[in-house]
Structures are given as structure tokens and as C-alpha cells.
């Protein structure tokens, strides 16, 4: 393997990791705060993608510039967070925080199944493709290989911004500190007057919006079709579990690890590309069952 190939694999890995991270980070945030593994995250991702494609399609049909696709991505993410995420927390999850984990998992899985069918009802089964945003940014040529600016530069930058922004939000804003406090000890937080219900609702909306944003960012690069959510939730879960549930920086590191592992596999031994993310997860969890960055939890009783 020469240096060129090495660098190419590196670029591909980073671009892929950026996308995976933007989805996984919402999943791990929700788990970190609410201790709920939200399987419906995959659907929120898909809805975000569908919504972006549809809105961009409308905007283009009305004659707006392709660059409008970027604000529409944010808009779709917010819509997913507020209109889909909000009701899920408020109507369903709120009732099951004290129930066994299996039940929580089943409920979010049920939501996932329902949303999968909702997508079919609304958008049908034919694949959508809406690449205006990606085309608007053009390409760069590196070592004789064309990359899209969108995937090679914008996505990694956005992922980095997301990571830094989320860190800042949690450590340096009031709301972020409230979230952290509630995460640490919900009862203690409530006893000093923090409205834990509200914190949970906000967290879930933010987490859901991040899933929607992941879908929105992915939408110009891929066909949007039924089943895309299922694939993403499995991969994000691999990332989140390898990092340690609830670890945001860890998710970034693991997404990079898995992204690079996958892209080097395609260059060196393509047959194993599918296997690599899960192989990494398996090895990490065998050595550190709590994940790379997770700490063993002390049982309260």
C-alpha cells in the first residue's frame, strides 16, 4: 500500500465517519441523559432525509437557488425534532422511564415500525434522490481522484462543529448544565428545583433533531428509500456501544475508528468491508464491556 492509497482511504474514512457521527451523537445524547436506547432514532434519520429531499425538490421547482438546500436541511432537522421527537417523548416515553429496559426497547422499536410504515404511506416505495446541495459545492481533485467538496470538506467540518458545539452547550450554557445535572442524579436535580420532565423533553427533541440532521446531511449523497433507517440505527448503535453509551466525544472517536476501518478494508480486502465495524465492536466489547470510554456503572442498590 503506497502513500496515495493510504491517504485516499483516510479521506474516505473521514467523510464516512462524519456522517455516521452526526447520527450516532443524537442516539448517545438521548441515552446518556434519559437512559433510553431509542430504536426509533433510525426512523427519525430517514424522515429527516425524506423531508429534506421533498422540501429541496419544492424549492428548486419554485426556482430557488440550490444553495437554499442547506437552510432547508436545518429546517427539516428542527421539524423532525419538534414535530416527531416532541410527541414521542411527551406521549410515550414519559410514561415508561421507570419501567424495565426491555419494555423501553420494545416501545421505541414499536415507534420505529410505525414510522417505517408512515414513510411508506407518505413517500411511497420508489427511491428518491435529491443531490442539489452536493452539486452546488462542486468537486476537488486529490491524487487523480475526484471527491465532492460536500463529503470531503463540509461533512467533516460540520461533524467537528457539532462535537465542539455540543460540548460547549452541555458545559457552558444553563440548559446544558441542567441536562448534565439531571443526567448525574435525577432525584437530586429535582430536589433542587430542576424541572426534570422539561429537561428530558428538550434533550429528546435535540437528540431527535440530530437524527433528522444526520438524515438531512446524508440525503444528497444517497438514495432515500424504505429501510434506510434500519441500516443506520444498526451502525449507529455499533458506534455508540463501542464508544460506551452516553459518551459524546467517544462516539466521535469510534465513528472515526469504524469509518477508517471500513474504508481501509475496501482498499485492502473488500470482502470484509461489511464485517469491519462489527468486528471492531466485538473486539472492544470483549476487552471493555462498558465500551472504550464508558465507566462501569455503580448499581444504586
Amino acid at each position, binding site marked *: 500500500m503506497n502513500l*496515495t*492509497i493510504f491517504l*485516499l*482511504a483516510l*479521506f*474516505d*474514512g473521514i*467523510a*464516512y465517519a462524519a*456522517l455516521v457521527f452526526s447520527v450516532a451523537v443524537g442516539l448517545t445524547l438521548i441515552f446518556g441523559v434519559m437512559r433510553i436506547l431509542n430504536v426509533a432514532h433510525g426512523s427519525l434519520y430517514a424522515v429527516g432525509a425524506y423531508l429534506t429531499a421533498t422540501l429541496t425538490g419544492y424549492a428548486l421547482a419554485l426556482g430557488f437557488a440550490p444553495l437554499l438546500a442547506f437552510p432547508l436541511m436545518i429546517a427539516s432537522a428542527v421539524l423532525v425534532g419538534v414535530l416527531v421527537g416532541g410527541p414521542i417523548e411527551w406521549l410515550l416515553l414519559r410514561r415508561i422511564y421507570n419501567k424495565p429496559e426491555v419494555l423501553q426497547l420494545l416501545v421505541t422499536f414499536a415507534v420505529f415500525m410505525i414510522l417505517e410504515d408512515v414513510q*411508506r404511506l407518505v413517500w411511497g*416505495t*420508489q*427511491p428518491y*434522490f435529491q*443531490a442539489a446541495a*452536493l*452539486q452546488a459545492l462542486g*468537486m476537488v481533485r486529490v*491524487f*487523480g*481522484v*475526484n*471527491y*465532492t467538496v460536500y*463529503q470531503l470538506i463540509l461533512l467533516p467540518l460540520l461533524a467537528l462543529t457539532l462535537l465542539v458545539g455540543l460540548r460547549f452547550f452541555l458545559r457552558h450554557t444553563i440548559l446544558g448544565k441542567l441536562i448534565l445535572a439531571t443526567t448525574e442524579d435525577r432525584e437530586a436535580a429535582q430536589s433542587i428545583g430542576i424541572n426534570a420532565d422539561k429537561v428530558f423533553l428538550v434533550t429528546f427533541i435535540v437528540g431527535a433533531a440530530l437524527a433528522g440532521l444526520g438524515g438531512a446531511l*446524508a440525503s444528497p*449523497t*444517497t*438514495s432515500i*428509500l*424504505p*429501510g*434506510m433507517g434500519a*441500516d*443506520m440505527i444498526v451502525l449507529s448503535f455499533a458506534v455508540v456501544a463501542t464508544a460506551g453509551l452516553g459518551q459524546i466525544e467517544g462516539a466521535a472517536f469510534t465513528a472515526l475508528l469504524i469509518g477508517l476501518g*471500513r*474504508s481501509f478494508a*475496501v*482498499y485492502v480486502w*473488500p*470482502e470484509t*468491508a*461489511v464485517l469491519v465495524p462489527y468486528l471492531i465492536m466485538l473486539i472492544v466489547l470483549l476487552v471493555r464491556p462498558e465500551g472504550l470510554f464508558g465507566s462501569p456503572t455503580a448499581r444504586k442498590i
Partner: protein
Amino acid sequence: MRKFLLTTAAILAAPFAALAAEKPAELRVGITTFLTGPASVFGVPARDAAEIIVEKLNAEGGIGGVPVRLSFIDEGAGAEALTTEFRRQVEAGAHAMMGAISSGNCQTLAPLAEDLKVLNLMWDCGTQQIFEQNDYKYVFRTQANATPEMLATVLYLLKVKPDFKTIAVVNQDYAWGRDSWQIFSAALKALKPDVQVVGEFFPKFGAADFSTEISRLQAMQPDVILSTSWGGDLDTFIQQAAQRGLMNSSTFVIPLAESSLERLGSTLPAGHIIGARGDHYFLHPERRDDADFQAFMTAFREKTGAHAIYPVFHMSQALAALKAAYDKAIAAKGGEWPEKDDVVAAFEGLTFQGLGREVTIREDNQGIEAQLLGMSVQTGDYPFATLENIMIFDGAALTTPVGQESVAWVSQLTPEYVESVKIDAYEK
């Protein structure tokens, strides 16, 4: 002994055979198709086509005066639900079944249909193995299989781009992706031994991202890139490859892309080799001026808002075969309604025509179907790529001879074979 038993059975059955079966109030046909899942890109248009065709057929008096009633089974529900529903419909008195799209489902349903002694037309599945590994009495295939499809693709490639040196493949990682590459590469090796395979990629079925494969392919710069992928996978791969300029440096050979043309719109550049799993194209050069063809295409567009793709043609062939077999059996009985076995017998050597050229059923129950390939071109007549430099290959020379195994047969072909296949060429 076997012959003795058969003869005895025949003698015992003789008095009954002369009696006509009672004419049913309706001819019930069960069709398995994908209504959910990724393959619904094929299954849903095929169902719509079946409904259009049967509506017209019934308006014209049905089959032998009996109206046809269709019921659909979703292949997307899984093999178990599929076999249960298939069995249920047969036991409830379905006169004929049509299954399936998925090769795996065909492998499951063919022996089941044989057990249930019900006529089953494999109307879309591609696996060449079914009749090469087993003999069936009740199961027929009303179209070609993977072997002629891949062989025609190799021939077209050799005709239009005889000097290429290197090829890479990007197929879906499941039975079709692997099997089609096995046949294609065996044929290529036999017909053009100096070609070098520089890369083999089998991304997972339903993969959403081919960026890494595309980077690697750009670094390799193969002359030709083959992909037998379909549906969302193919759309994604073509979109990503086109975005990154890979389609300017390599010629793509995409044997199932006819079914993606309309969805890909202006993305698919000119100069890539497009196949259609048979002579299936909504602008079929030999059929597009025919009134029945035009009437169907108009009706299909009105109903679905889209142009017809190959599963629609496959569906038309299976329904045409059913009608032709019944008509033939009725004629053989002097106008009386035929028994089940009379209809099955009528399939021997049966010739019928759907929306493409005529198809003939061979003695091993395999259909002989022509293959159409062309080169993509953006003319501006449609908001998507159409075909030019079309070649229609005669099916008989492409189909593995009865009793032989496809990969072995394809492997022993010689470069002279290329010139021996009958081809009709059309500019567009």
C-alpha cells in the same frame, strides 16, 4: 417399471380424459410479487401492469369466455408467509399461480407447486439453476434466465467496445450479485481471454454509500465497470459515480439499468451500456409502432405516471403464456374446457407474445426470450436517458442447451461464438 406404472395410469385415466372439465365461473390466478421492501420497485409496476392487462382481457371475454381474477401475494412478507399464502390460495382452488420475482422464492415455490400439482409460471426470477438441477412438470418459466441475460451483455460489450483491457465489478452481496458475476466472468474469460479483472467489490445489499469503492475505482481506472445491481442500490451507485466523474473515465455496463432510467433522470450520462433482462424497453424498436403496444403504454402511464420497465414486460409475457396455453388446450379439446393436465401439456413448445418479441417454451420448461441492450443517450426527448445503438439478440443461441450446466457451458465457448449469434441492430 416406471414406464409400466405410467402406462397403467394413462390407461386408467383414459376414460376420464375424454370428459371435459366443468367450465369455472372465473379463472383464479395467484401472483406473488414484491409489494413491500426494496424489490417493490419491480413488484408494484408489475402488479399495476397485471391489473391493466387482465382488465382488458376480461373486457374482451377473458380466457375461453371465462373472466380472470387475480389475487396478489406479497413476497416482501418473507418466505414463510409467502409459502403459507401460496398454499392457501392453491387449496382454495386457484387455477394457476405465478411466482416469483425473487430467485430464492422461485427455488422455494417451484417444488411446492410441483407437490401441490398446480401450474406455476415463474414470471420474473432470474436464477438459471432451477431447470438445470431439477425436472418439473407443473413449473414453467415465461422468460429467459441469468445466463442469456449475462451472455448477451458480454456480447454487446464485445461488439461496441472490443478493445477494452480491464474490468472491475461492483455487485450486490447476495445470490444474484454473485451468480451473475460468475456467469459474466466465465463468459468474458471464454470469449475474450486477455481481459484482466482488476477489482471485485460486493458491497452489502442495500448499501447507502459507495464513496470508498468509487475512490478506489478512480484510482484503478478500469476500462469497464460492471454492475448488475438494481433498485435503490443501483440508483445510489450511479448517482455517486456520476457526481464524482467516474462515469467519464470508465464505461459502465449496467444490465438492469433499464429499470432505473426514469428515476436517474439527467444524471445518467451518455455512452454506457444498458440492459433490460430481455427485450424490454418502452420504445422497443420492433414493437413501438404496434397498436396494442402503444395502447398498453398509454394505459400504463395513465395509471402509474411512469414508463413501463422490464417486470411489466415479464408480467405481460406470463399472462400471455397463460392465455395461449388455455387457448391451445381448448382448441385441442374441440372447444371444451380443458383439465388441469391438458393446460400443462399445452405448454410444451408453446409460443406466445407479451409486449416484446415472441417467447417459446423449450422442452425443459425454460422460455427462450430475446435480449435487448443499448447505449445510454440524453436526447432531450425525455427528461431521462434513452437508448441508442440498440441490439436485439436471438434468445435460442444464448440459452444453455437442455441438460447442460450454465457456467460449464459458458466456459467452453470460444471467441468465434461472438459472430454466430443472430443480432438485429437499430440506431435507436
